[in-house]
């Protein structure tokens, strides 16, 4: 007797996107198992962020399918997508914190929107989420008064407070110093271990990829150029991959 493989948390079939005649994504196929961390790497403009936005229906593909926990989301209306999105959290590159709200209000936002009204419950859950990201004591600050690393942590707390099954990270370490980047990497790992969340991390930071990845997909010109383990990526003798890993542009002075 054979057992059915578990439904992938997220899967993408033949996903293509064309914007103004430009092919941004060309037939992407990907599957992410529950609890797995997939890192999508690639140069700027390779279509990483666009791919990520397709995964929760923030963008509509030209053709192809996106399935969240086995449910096809392409073709659904914005209102039909809303409940599905609640199972998937997204951390944006610029954090996208609501700048008129304090840290506490930002983190509490998804809870309130989910219908939680009891101030005691909200306060304790916010405290718990801020504790996960080591940011206790900054509840009343406004986003303008936070450093880049703190903003990322608040954004992360806002994502995890509703316990999504899957978290998408868009360049989580971009623009941060190496020490803060490292702490964010640890956080991503911690969330995965503690809550078993499936994670998809878009980055061009190789340190981040090395630390958090179960699987790596290398995106090049809108297509998947390499998919496999991180060690295999490092061991690859392909010049394109090695140029990316070593940070070689091929230009001369």
């Amino acid at each position, binding site marked *: 007797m054979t057992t059915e493989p578990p439904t992938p948390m997220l899967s993408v079939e033949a996903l293509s996107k064309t914007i103004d005649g430009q092919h941004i994504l060309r037939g992407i196929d990907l599957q992410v198992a529950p609890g797995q961390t997939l890192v999508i790497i690639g140069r700027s403009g390779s279509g990483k962020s666009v791919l990520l936005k397709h995964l929760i229906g*923030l963008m509509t593909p030209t053709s192809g399918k996106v399935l969240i926990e086995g449910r096809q989301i392409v073709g659904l209306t914005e209102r039909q997508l809303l409940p599905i999105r609640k199972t998937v959290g997204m951390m944006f590159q610029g954090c996208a914190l609501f*700048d008129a709200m304090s840290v506490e209000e930002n983190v509490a936002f998804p809870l309130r929107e989910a219908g939680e009204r009891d101030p005691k419950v909200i306060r304790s859950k916010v405290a718990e989420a801020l504790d996960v990201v080591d940011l206790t004591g900054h509840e009343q600050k406004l986003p303008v008064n936070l450093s880049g690393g703190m903003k990322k942590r608040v954004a992360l707390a806002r994502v995890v407070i509703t316990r999504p099954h899957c978290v998408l990270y868009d360049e989580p370490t971009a623009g941060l110093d190496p020490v803060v980047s490292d702490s964010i990497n640890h956080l991503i790992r911690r969330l995965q271990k503690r809550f078993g969340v499936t994670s998809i991390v878009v980055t061009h930071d190789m340190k981040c990829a090395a630390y958090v990845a179960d699987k790596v997909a290398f995106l090049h010109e809108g297509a998947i150029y390499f998919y496999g383990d991180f060690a295999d990526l490092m061991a690859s003798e392909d010049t394109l991959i090695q140029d990316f890993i070593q940070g070689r542009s091929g230009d001369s002075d």
Partner: protein
Amino acid sequence: MLLLRFLGSTALSLFAYLGALMFLMLETLRSVVTTPIRWRLALQQVLEVGFRSQLVVIVTGGFTGAVFAAQTYFQFHRLSMETAVGAVVAVSMFRELGPVLTGLMVAGRVGAAMSAEIGTMKVTEQIDALRSMGVHPVDYLVVPRAIAMMISMPILVAECVGIGILVGQFVAVKLLGVSGVWYVNYMLKFTALRDLQMALTKGFVFGILIVFVACNEGLRAKEGAVGVGQATTDAVVNGSLFILIVNFFLTMILNIFFPAG
């Protein structure tokens, strides 16, 4: 040929624009019917757009009433009809000047602020963040603002008209020496409830125009600071133009229901 193409593309983009506005209005209507309204946000917006716009609207109404009374007096005085100034000022303030000027001022003050705020949220991915958390931007951003404008605009128009008439009376009676009793007598004789109804209806419609033009511009803002700037400019210019154009048709239609005395 070139002219034809120009006219064609202009007409097309106008239709596309009107279509986008209609679509936003329908989505708002659907939201009001199907999802709970965020009254706290609506109230906050009433404070923001209504309460804080009063000074601008009062100054506009006051000085318009003053200058209109003075100009009418200068003309009517030659015909010895200066007691009719009050009637002219009141009817004009109610039926045209009050609603239109309030609309234009609010389009400038509130329309710009709304489109800039929503546009900034768009370009900093805050709108995408809302969507990613399962919140429809129309439910959260547009519905409370639309409700606030529908409540605030008629009140602001009433304030503008009231102040305009009072200041006009002050200028005519106290400064220019028109007989106060006759001034008020003629004013009351030629104005009626229908004029107030027209003013409030126009205010209500202009409020709807301003809020949907502004929210539409904000939600469609293109990347970067330039995009937000453009959205803000378009919100004010398009909002003002819409008010002036719609005002003509509104006058013609409303005159059937509330005919001028």
